[in-house]
């Protein structure tokens, strides 16, 4: 919403500066987006008269002109290239040092082909008044009296333009008068009374019938339609002052008839429409559209209507969309001799829906969908009649009104104490009453049980909370005292849930293992989603911003792998990245899950990456990410040794170098492994990548242990170690050897560590391998005899054989 200071002053008696007004507008909820002061941009340009024009001595196309720039002062010599420069021409002069907005230069004193120019004569384009750059401004000869004046003063352009960003609840402020009312209430001046219109001689009856054709259910689409014809009008351009204001508001002046409707829309927030009355066939019908009906709109485009849209039709079909846009066929032109003015009310919801379906964004829609003052239909019609007859002459008909204004009187029971209870600021009863009345509310009764009647132009005010808002925003939000929120007793407690604590811990643990945290998009390309087990139709966006962001991610790996590629394209191949965030197995809230996933690419291993004098880092592999998973789970209070490692990781992992870590057959705690080469190829990843996914929601809750730690069970007795190498079939898992050894005497065997795996030599040919373990035996109460140790060792050998078929290597 744009308007000028002088326009505001039509409605507001004030001596405040534009800056003061702007500050208050923003404070009371009418946020000022910009104040454009033409004096700052164009103030230096002066009216000047060319007294003498001679050919430039050194250039055919230039002239040297003597310019009067102020009465009674010496003439200025200026070099000018404009073909229309001539003696006697009144134009615009810019002295040296002036910034020329149209050409983005600052004038400097320098000779032009040997003649020094003391300034510049300017074209309309140089002042950014229009595109016209063919010659310098050619002002009326009588402006010679104004020589020396600032051009913007002489042309009536010295009028600051204020742009306000309106919130959707304030249709009353889509007109300058509404803004003036708010400012007056806030103490920035006095609201001027409505101007008195000249008495209207309604000379004849409006001959065009107006019919509202709705069912009882749809009658709210257009409950009232007022019309008046004015005959024998002479259309033409509207007056300069009106054109200047329309232009300042960002509108293109069309002709007097159209400009009047646009002006009243901006001035009063009351949209109107004018028809060329002679082009209307038969009656005007306000009705719902019929599916498939078409009309050519004023924007020159054809629109198809449907049975939810309110149309204004004549006997031949729709002319325009009510409250949105008029039609080309009945639009007014310079030839229009008889005009019909429409002042109607259109339902906000239906108008918004029609606007959305047609994509039409118009000033009328903007106002009707917010809720035009239903009481403004008749005053708007009369104001337009008055202006049109002033500008275009003619005789007015009687007003023809179909239907009735949808005015519902809203009275709110209001206890003034509510203001302090909700806002915390104590205001006097008198001040509260004063503010409400200044905004147009009617106030009756006592302050503790007031009856407040809402003005027709405030469809947004429904209850006491709304009234509190009106009062405190006008009184000033800065008067609300900051009040400490009462502290809950004592020292602040921990507030995070166990899950939230785990997420925090996992994040810092992974960063401590050299991973860099990324945050990637929740939506990914459909193909990637499908590849990673998602891509179901229910998780596809109906209106994605691009195909790259069209499907909700089933997991975090696609985003991380894409990131690996992107970093490779920037020259970084050894990257370790993780993300901790949500992914989606379905549309329901319970199918959103929290995952911590990481990728190691190239040689980005825990100890470092790349080449190094102390040993080059090897490419990442399944054991790097297994270590990440086990370390993370341990940090989160889950003993990974209690889980089962199975070889059924999903298909995007390498089939032989990956695993799932499960707790029972169904609960998957994590997947880890090398990424399948085919998946890497699909995602255009060149380096080897190993990755993991930890499913944080699946982790068993941490047991609530007592905070006191159990006593330290440390024996003074020296532990004993024994090394045992077993020859086992090649496909036996080392983990099974370890498990058999550990379980053979749980009380004495403390740890079993695999220190060598050998698959080469003659063993390979036999389909076997050697697994060497170091068993640490911790005596509990007394030193073990050699014989006792031998007994334990033999039991380990027997148990391992039983479990794996392996024999001690001889």
């Amino acid at each position: 919403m744009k308007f000028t200071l002088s326009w505001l002053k039509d409605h507001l008696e004030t001596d405040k500066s534009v800056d003061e007004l702007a500050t208050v507008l923003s404070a009371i909820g009418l946020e000022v987006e910009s104040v454009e002061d033409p004096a700052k941009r164009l103030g230096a340009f002066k009216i000047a008269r060319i007294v003498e024009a001679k050919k430039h001595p050194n250039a055919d196309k230039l002239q040297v002109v003597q310019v009067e720039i102020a009465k009674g002062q010496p003439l200025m010599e200026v070099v000018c290239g404009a073909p229309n420069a001539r003696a006697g021409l009144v134009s615009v002069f810019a002295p040296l040092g002036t910034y020329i907005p149209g050409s983005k230069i600052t004038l400097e004193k320098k000779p032009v082909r040997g003649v020094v120019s003391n300034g510049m004569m300017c074209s309309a384009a140089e002042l950014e008044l229009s595109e016209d750059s063919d010659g310098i401004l050619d002002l009326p000869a009588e402006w010679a009296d104004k020589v020396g004046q600032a051009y913007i003063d002489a042309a009536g352009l010295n009028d600051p333009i204020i742009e306000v960003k309106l919130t959707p609840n304030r249709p009353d402020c889509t007109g300058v008068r509404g803004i003036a009312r708010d400012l007056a209430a806030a103490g920035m001046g006095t609201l001027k009374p409505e101007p008195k219109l000249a008495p209207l001689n309604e000379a004849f009856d409006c001959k065009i019938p107006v019919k509202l054709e709705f069912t009882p259910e749809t009658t709210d689409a257009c409950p009232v339609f007022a019309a008046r014809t004015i005959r024998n009008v002479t259309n033409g351009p509207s007056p300069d002052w009106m054109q200047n204001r329309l232009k300042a508001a960002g509108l293109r002046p069309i002709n007097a008839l159209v400009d009047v409707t646009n002006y009243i829309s901006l001035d009063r927030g009351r949209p109107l429409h004018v028809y060329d009355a002679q082009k209307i066939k038969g009656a005007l019908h306000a009705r719902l559209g019929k599916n498939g009906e078409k009309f050519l709109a004023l924007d020159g485009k054809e629109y198809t209507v449907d049975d939810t849209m309110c149309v204004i039709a004549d006997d031949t079909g729709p002319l325009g969309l009510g409250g949105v846009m008029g039609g080309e066929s009945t639009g007014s032109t310079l030839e229009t001799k008889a005009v019909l003015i429409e002042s109607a009310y259109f339902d906000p919801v239906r108008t918004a829906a029609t606007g959305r379906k047609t994509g039409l964004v118009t000033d009328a829609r903007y106002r009707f969908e917010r809720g035009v003052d239903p009481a403004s239909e008749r005053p708007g019609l009369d104001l337009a009649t008055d202006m049109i007859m002033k500008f275009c002459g003619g005789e007015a008909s009687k007003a023809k009104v179909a239907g009735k204004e949808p005015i519902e009187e809203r009275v709110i029971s209001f206890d003034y104490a509510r203001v302090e209870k909700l806002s915390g600021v104590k205001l006097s009863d008198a001040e509260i009453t004063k503010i409400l009345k200044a905004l147009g509310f009617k106030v009756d009764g006592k302050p503790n049980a007031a009856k407040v009647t809402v003005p027709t132009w405030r469809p947004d005010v429904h209850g006491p909370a709304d009234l509190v808002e009106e009062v405190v925003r006008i009184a000033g939000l800065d008067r609300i005292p900051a009040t400490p929120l009462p502290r809950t007793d004592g020292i602040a407690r921990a507030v995070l849930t166990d899950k939230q604590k785990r997420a925090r811990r996992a994040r810092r643990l992974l960063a401590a293992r050299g991973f860099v945290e990324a945050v990637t998009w929740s939506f990914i390309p459909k193909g990637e989603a499908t590849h990673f087990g998602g891509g179901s139709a229910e998780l596809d966006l109906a209106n994605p911003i691009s195909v790259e962001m069209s499907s909700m991610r089933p997991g975090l790996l696609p985003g991380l792998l894409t990131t690996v590629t992107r970093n490779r394209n920037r020259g970084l191949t050894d990257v370790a990245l993780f993300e901790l965030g949500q992914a989606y197995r379905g549309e329901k809230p319970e199918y959103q899950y929290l995952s911590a996933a990481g990728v190691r690419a190239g040689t980005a291993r825990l100890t470092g990456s790349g080449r190094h004098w102390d040993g080059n880092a090897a490419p990442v592999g399944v054991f790097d990410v297994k270590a990440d998973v086990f370390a993370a789970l341990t940090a989160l209070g889950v003993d990974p040794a209690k889980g089962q490692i199975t070889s059924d990781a999903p298909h995007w992992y390498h089939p032989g170098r990956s695993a799932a870590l499960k707790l029972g057959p169904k609960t998957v705690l994590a997947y880890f492994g090398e990424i399948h080469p085919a998946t890497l190829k699909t995602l255009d990843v060149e380096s080897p990548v190993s990755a993991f996914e930890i499913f944080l929601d699946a982790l068993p809750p941490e047991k609530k242990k007592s905070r006191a730690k159990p006593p330290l069970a440390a024996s003074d007795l020296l532990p004993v170690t024994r090394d045992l190498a077993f020859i086992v079939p090649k496909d036996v898992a080392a983990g099974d050897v370890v498990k058999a050894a550990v379980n053979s005497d749980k009380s004495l065997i403390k740890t079993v560590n695999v220190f060598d795996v050998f698959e080469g030599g003659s063993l390979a040919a036999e389909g076997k391998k050697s697994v060497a373990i170091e068993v640490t035996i911790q005596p509990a109460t007394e030193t073990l005899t050699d014989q006792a140790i031998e007994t334990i060792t033999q039991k380990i050998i027997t148990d391992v054989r039983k479990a794996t078929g392996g024999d001690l290597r001889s």
Partner: protein
Amino acid sequence: MSTSSDLSTLERELLAEISGAGDLAALDAVRVSSLGKKGRVSELMSKLGSLPPEERKSFGQTVNALKTKVAEALDTRKADLETAALDERLKTERADVTLPVRFGPVAQGRIHPVSQVLDEVVEIFADMGFSVAEGPDIETDEMNFDKLNIPAEHPARQDHDTFYFSPKADGSRLLLRTHTSPVQIRTMVAQKPPIRIIAPGRVYRMDSDQTHTPMFHQVEGLVIDETTHMGHLKWVLQEFCKAFFEVDEVKMRFRASHFPFTEPSMEVDIGAEAIGKPGQWLEILGCGMVHPNVLRNCGLDPEKYQGFAFGVGLDRLTMLKYGIPDLRSFFSGDLKWLSHYGFSMLDVPTLGGGLSS
């Protein structure tokens, strides 16, 4: 046969041999030849029995003294030789300590700025008794709009540029939440006042340019009880800004505004002095008293309960506090950006130790 002069000669000879031993092996040979079982000193002792009883005592004492002296000389020489050998070895042992070392994973890893700032925000609000609530990204029209007092054709819905999923058979369709406000509803439905929560999370709007990304982060705040008013809201936001920007004073400007789910509503600007740019105002958040309709929609009586809500862009807070220029880089996964703007895992924000290190 032995005389004291013989013993003196022997002593001299042995001591000379000891000091002349060039290495540990030679020294050991001297030890064997002197104090060994058949060594020269030991042999003297074996003669003790053949002496007349009156001489035995003094001879024994003399030989023992010699034995002690030789043993000491052997020890001293051994220590000297060992020291010399170590010195010799150390002369050959040299490392080029200018060679580079690996700093290890702790130096490499980073926390994303948004995660770090969320931890900071949680720390501040936890101190004021707020807990952390969460809700799903995929929401219903009802939760994202209707219950928040935003009816179907309300112009505010158009402002949101919502991502939708395909319509179901019954015409309903799910959407990606456009703000964290649905968590207000979920909280008020699930729990009776008093309520103090913040709700951080991802939100989505169809917007993509220099300053907008289709996904970003918000933190919602909600306090509901029987007495909390706008003065408390002001105080909470002031205290938050001071704590968050880690300054003693933050200039704040409250402007009236409109959100369908709050009444009265305000927008809040802070003086950019807080981030070292005096003379400017920065819009940071929207807030207000929870709208009576919203309370009613959650089964709370607006005559009894009241309170405030606010919503703030987490990414924007991050950019302001840490001088990060471009929102789009937040989600690019660019390792150089993440390493530069990210945080060490050791920088755990605490109120006692400072939010930032």
